[in-house]
């Protein structure tokens, strides 16, 4: 295995503040200048094995302090800058409803809503979501108080193993909003007309959520059912 860093030697990044890497990168709505001036000392987690800490290398992580608003609650976090939103949710906030199926934006199991829009949480950094309203499957509903989309998935058996299911449901909720907002899709015939809620449209718009169990036919029924329930409400 070739080490990419040796092929393309990485120098120590320029650091205007002159502070070492063993520092926090503190993020806020601040400008870059404010970021640079608000470095604070890096604290090692208490359980870190005691080993002489080598001089900072290109491998030394940069830590960032940030706060995330998830399902209406604000969480203060100290994260490696490399932490994706998905890993922040699953590993740090222990909201494991959002799933890691591929970690590369190829399956949709990690779909969450950010400010009402669905995204792949595996392909975005946690530190880029300060101030955003993040909604995960846990925020849509609970076993005791299910969201109509969740209830429709149960009723229509729109899942089997359950692993893609939270992503499918988040995507489905956002899809209905996208149709309502008139956003066109690949199968929208008339770009000048409002988007329609048809099974063809649902299938195309849900295609970023792979279900290997093959519950697609039932998922589309569930979404149709939930959409109908909503319209009547």
């Amino acid at each position: 295995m070739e080490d990419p860093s040796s092929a393309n030697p990485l120098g120590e990044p320029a650091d205007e503040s002159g502070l070492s890497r063993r520092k926090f990168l503190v993020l806020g709505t601040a400008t870059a200048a404010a970021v640079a001036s608000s470095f604070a000392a890096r604290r090692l987690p208490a359980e870190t094995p005691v080993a002489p800490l080598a001089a900072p290398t290109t491998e030394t992580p940069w830590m960032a302090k940030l706060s995330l608003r998830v399902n209406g609650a604000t969480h203060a976090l100290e994260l490696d800058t490399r932490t994706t939103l998905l890993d922040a949710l699953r590993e740090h906030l222990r909201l494991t409803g959002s799933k890691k199926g591929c970690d590369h934006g190829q399956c949709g199991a990690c779909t969450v809503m950010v400010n009402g829009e669905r995204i792949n949480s595996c392909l975005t950094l946690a530190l880029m979501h300060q101030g955003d309203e993040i909604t995960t499957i846990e925020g849509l509903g609970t076993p005791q108080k299910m969201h109509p989309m969740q209830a429709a998935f149960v009723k229509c058996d729109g899942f089997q193993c359950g692993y893609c299911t939270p992503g499918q449901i988040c995507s489905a909720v956002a899809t209905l909003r996208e149709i309502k907002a008139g956003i066109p899709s690949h199968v929208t015939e008339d770009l000048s007309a409002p988007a329609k809620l048809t099974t063809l449209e649902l299938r195309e718009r849900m295609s970023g959520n792979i279900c290997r169990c093959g519950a697609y036919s039932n998922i589309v029924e569930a979404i149709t059912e939930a959409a109908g329930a909503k319209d009547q409400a």
Partner: protein
Amino acid sequence: MKFDVPATTNPIDQLKVVGKSPDRIDGKLKTTGTAPYAYERHDVAPNQAYGYLLGSAIAKGTVTRIDVDKAKAAPGVVTIVSTLDVPKLPLGMRNIAQLFGGAEVMHYHQAIALVVAETFEQARSAASLIRVEYSRAPGKFDLAAEAPSAPLTGPAAPGGGDASRINRVGDFDGAFAAAAVKLDAQYTTPDQSHMMMEPHASIAAWEGDKLTVWTSNQMINWAKQDLAKTLGLPPENVRIISPYIGGGFGGKLFLRADVVAAALGAKAAKRPVKVALPRPMIPNNTTHRPATIQRIRIGADADGRITAIAHESTSGNLPQGRPETAPSQTKLLYAGANRLTALRLAVLDLPEGNAMRAPGEAPGLMALEIAMDEMAEKLGLDPIEFRVRNDTQVDPEKPERPFSQRQLIECLRQGAERFGWSQRNPKPAQTRDGDWLVGIGVAAGFRNNVLMKSAARVRLGKDGGVTVETDMTDIGTGSYTIIAQTAAEVMGVPLEKVTVSLGDSSFPTSSGSGGQWGANNSTAGVYAACMKLREMIAQKLGLDPANLEFADGAVRAGERRVSLAEAAGEAGLSAEDGIEYGELGKKYQQSTFAGHFVEVAVHSFTGETRIRRMLAVCAAGRILNPKTARSQVIGAMTMGAGAALTEELAVDKRQGFFVNHDLAGYEVPVHADIPHQEVIFLDEADPISSPMKAKGVGELGICGVGAAIANAIHHATGVRVRDYPITVDKVLNGLPELV
């Protein structure tokens, strides 16, 4: 409970709960993100560290040196276990490729090092600092090149020589030569990947010399036995916990590298370690469905009666690997006095080939059922009529063995009726819808019913609630729900009063999930345990067990009615039993059948195929829960659509690896590929199969559907493609010329 005579009327036949379609009892958890999968168990084994696996960059050879110094010095790294730190570990009973340990590399992306670090980001980054030196050995990676010299694998007759490894009934060669109408064609299916949505993942924690693993595995007891063997532990020191499994399809039947690496990593780190296979590593690190090259010969008389049928298949695998048994259904599906089946197996240095949803039948029927369509065409017969003429109610190789139930013809006839088959123009390439060429196709579906012993423990609590414990798994199949239905039916309690705990090796050993054997066997085991519990209740209450009625949460004997809560008493009652099978499986051939119907449209310019309609009519014994059973069937039909149209692990024949090893490169069906799917279950109960009178159904849906799609494409375009997947490039040349 020994099951060795056909079932008579029993408590399941009440069908108050069994046979109904309640929502899945685990549905609320799965749809709210609260069902915990293996990698998500923050609630167990505190202080978990993150493991990240490195895979071999070569397909065959040896690892000569692994330099972990830089990686070890990387921040947050707790420990590194390299394959050179560990001796070659004993193989599990069911493993072919080495999972970890030793210098030998048997396939690409074989796990060769595990980095354990405080965070996932640190572990992943440090893994890239490991320098590995290899000594490459030449390997064989091209099935087509190896096929001509691939040896036969069947059992040789004593003194019969190599030719006796061919399975023959009657005189195939003579009958085929004499047949009025003949087909001799080759079909190929590619390597395929399970691509279940949840990557293989495990958390391992040691307590002294006892190991607990939270993992994602279909067969708990196999995993326990094989992990113990691999690590040299007594099996009782190993506990496997796997209550939720994000899909398996055969890919999680066996012990895999994540489990072994997590266990070794946890030992070295002296703390719990969790490991998930990165998606791009899965196709080459784990198992796959092997590619096949199949030759089918069918001879028939002028009336369309098969006189000779031969199905030979060649596949490849690592040394000690098994062949893909593609001809298996051909031994049983159609009549014909003169028969031949044979398997050839080439040694290939690709990753391990092993079971994927309906091994054998899935690729076998993809070939056989095109061949049947081609024969029907040659004979000028309707493809359904051709199949009807060649139906058999007995095992054609052993006519003394009848099928326990066989309603293939009824499946095809009902399907034809429902699908509008009579409207079909027998001539291909006649129907147009704008730029699209439209066709319909049919194929028979066939999959055997496998009997496996299966045990469970059932407890009656002081509240009258029933708890079932078994190491059975629910991989999306609906096991939780049908087991609850079974217990509710036998114990006479509402479904809500049943709690089901699965996937823990501390529970009685079940059939596990695989080969569509899970539903029938595991519920039969639960039935046995419940019947034992009924006896205990009768005994405790001093009642005659023969004349009891369990209903509405109470047991009744004549005028006497005792609530189950009262019967349980403060201490509760617990019974453990299982189902074991006698000779019925030998006396009768137990199989499941389907008629698959598909309508496709093929774009007349571009050759894109889009499926418009799909119908499966299934005869698979008693359907325990039509809702979850239907889901199994549509899911398998979807996977079959992928197999027919897009799925192929592309082999780099120089480097020896599957190139498109992620979910972007390996294209499984998406929503837009799948239309509304219809499933009909014939009303059937098979008293030969088990007290449940059920059979498997989870794989039947993939068996035959690919060929139905291929046949529909032929009907739409007149282009006969015998090489899966049927992508645009294979259809283009047969489409109408551009004007």
